[in-house]
């Protein structure tokens, strides 16, 4: 009776689905002509999947676009699932390489090495990103804070904006007597880890909560992810948070200058972040290049709050079908051109001494 009508409707739906599956395209409109052609990229073909840190997502997006534009036969799929999940995927062998906010920890190395059939897993520093202390305070530009005051603000010991600790650093600024609304991340993140490490190193007496990916101090409110804290600060007067620079910049939040003990408070710029990474030391062994930052640096013009993120790859033992593309892609990201792309995306390029070491290590991947 009604069967045929149902069949017709189902047929319609099926046809719609089929039509849908046929008509989309991966092509993009050429909105900003990227310098294709003589990109100098040694292309490889195929498709790889990588995953990890969301802090390097924007960098990866730019790299993947440039690489795929130059190499039409290649697909690089980077998913920002988080460092911990990225390392887990790498260990399980389901991704070709992982992005991570921290070098492999001792308890993680065994598993990661086992995944690389014939070799070890190594950490290659690839993306450095400054973290901004961003605030929303009407009529106050260029707020200056030092590590101890930042620590006290985020642990609820400094409660109002006109606290002597803040006014002393900002003579002349019109600071309201309003309560400080400090926001931190409610999810666990490498950014939180980095900020807490910085505070513990640069203001050990004011920050006694240790480091870690979970925010450890009492007090304040929290929001999920970088966009969560950014929009929270944006919509809450008298609020302050820590967030990757690109978020603070896009939301046009004020960014704190940090008084490090150098002759003048350091503003957050690509240069000042790069200057800080310059003094980083390689502490990895062999082709592992994990870095140690000096958070308590007093160097002139060095912005101390910088996040270094790594690519974790197999020195030897990447599956043969993925190896050429992994090598080719990482060669590009570690090249001078590749690092230069980052400056527009809110990151700082690797210092050339470290960049060369990374490029040499990529060369030996097998």
């Amino acid at each position: 009776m009604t069967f045929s009508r149902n069949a017709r409707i189902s047929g319609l739906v099926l046809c719609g689905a089929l039509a849908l599956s046929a008509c989309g395209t991966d092509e993009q409109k050429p909105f900003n002509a990227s310098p294709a052609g003589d990109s100098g990229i040694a292309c490889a073909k195929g498709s790889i999947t990588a995953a990890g840190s969301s802090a390097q997502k924007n960098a990866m997006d730019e790299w993947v676009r440039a690489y795929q534009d130059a190499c039409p036969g290649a697909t690089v799929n980077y998913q920002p699932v988080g460092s911990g999940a990225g390392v887990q995927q790498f260990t399980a062998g389901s991704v070709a390489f992982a992005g991570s906010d921290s070098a492999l920890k001792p308890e993680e190395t065994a598993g990661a090495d086992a995944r690389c059939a014939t070799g070890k897993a190594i950490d290659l520093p690839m993306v450095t990103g400054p973290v901004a202390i961003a605030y929303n305070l009407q009529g106050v530009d260029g707020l200056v804070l030092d590590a101890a005051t930042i620590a006290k603000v985020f642990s609820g010991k400094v409660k109002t904006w006109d606290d002597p600790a803040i006014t002393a650093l900002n003579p002349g600024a019109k600071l309201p007597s309003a309560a400080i609304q400090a926001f931190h991340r409610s999810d666990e993140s490498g950014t939180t880890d980095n900020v807490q490490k910085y505070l513990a190193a640069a203001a050990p007496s004011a920050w006694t909560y240790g480091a870690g990916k979970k925010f450890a101090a009492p007090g304040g409110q929290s929001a999920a992810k970088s966009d969560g804290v950014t929009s929270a600060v944006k919509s809450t007067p008298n609020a302050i948070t820590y967030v990757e620079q690109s978020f603070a910049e896009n939301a046009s939040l004020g960014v704190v200058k940090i008084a490090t003990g150098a002759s003048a408070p350091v503003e957050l710029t690509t240069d000042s972040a790069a200057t800080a990474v310059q003094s980083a030391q390689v502490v990895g062994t062999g082709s592992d290049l994990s870095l140690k930052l000096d958070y308590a640096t007093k160097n002139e013009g060095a912005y101390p709050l910088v996040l270094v993120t790594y690519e974790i790859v197999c020195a030897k033992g990447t599956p043969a079908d993925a190896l050429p593309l992994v090598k080719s892609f990482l060669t590009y990201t570690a090249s001078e051109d590749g690092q230069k792309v980052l400056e527009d995306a809110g990151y700082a390029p690797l210092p050339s001494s470290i960049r060369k070491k990374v490029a040499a290590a990529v060369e030996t991947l097998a």
Partner: protein
Amino acid sequence: MSAGSVRDPATPAAGTPSPAGTGAAGTSPASSTSGLRTPSLPPWGVPAVVAGIAVLTGLLVLATPLGGRTATVVVFALLLVVVQTALSLAVEGRRRATDRLVTTSVVLAFLLALLPLFSVLEYTATRGIHRFDVDFFYRSQRSIGARDPGGGAYHALLGTVEQVGIATLIAVPFGLLVAVYVVEYGRGRLAATIRFFVDVMTGIPSIVAGLFVLSFWILGLRMGFSGFAAALALTVLMLPIIVRSAEEMLRLVPSSLREASLALGVPRWKTILRIVLPTALPGIVTGVMLAVSRVMGETAPVLLTAFGAASIVRDPFRGGPQSSLPLFIYQQAGDAQQTAVDRAWTAALTLILLVMLLNLLARLVTRRSTIGR
């Protein structure tokens, strides 16, 4: 279904001409002289009360520092309930007063439920309209850099349709068979155990379902990320909703129907397929649509199993990582760039429209195949 649409003739709705024609006199107790008729508020009573309360609320808002849209509405609703009930209690007695109180509350509950719905829809629509263009439904995110405008969600839309489609194809027959077993055949321990654990299954957080498929299918059997793996995770989430709702609906089919069919010599399986299931069909379809709506918006299990991709992946079985709309929303909404956030809201709008469309289709199919029409 017409079974439930019986209207109570005893309490004519506001505006229906009252046969008694008591008119204005209805408010005075003196009119209840007939002895057979209980006194009732005149037909214009309810509108008059509503209007009166509206004026009163307006005065209150103007005269006192109440202020605020929310406060006004709340005051209006409270006054309406109290005054109308009191009036009805005085004139019509306790039973009618209760009846009016319930009627008003039910209407208010419905209006209250509409508030968040319209708010969410309006919010999504105003933010999603910016990128609601051809490119959005035609292009993917392949080679879209962090600060690029443009791009689209075609790859995600395709992924959602494939994943949810496969999940539905598995979960609906599976779930219905389980419900049929529990209601029609089930007896003793097994059926009770199944029913019980289906309830427990409703509380499984979606991310756990994703983890389960991740460790069994992807890591255990080394099948790799795929749209199909996501469909499996979504199946786990759909099953309890389908089984539970279908079970309730089958249980409501009168046993006399089954008996009549069996008495005519129709075999049991045919009775179930031709009589029991069609009778319960509208309810079953509602349950299925709830399940589909639920899993269409799931992010976490898809992230763990289909993993996500920026390019178009047509083959859900061997195509490798695939995207989906909720995953696309989640990732784009978390971006610093406004262009990405715009894409996220348009994707949210698309997802809602898609579910709307499916709901509508399901209604059409149900109405046409319900037996007895």
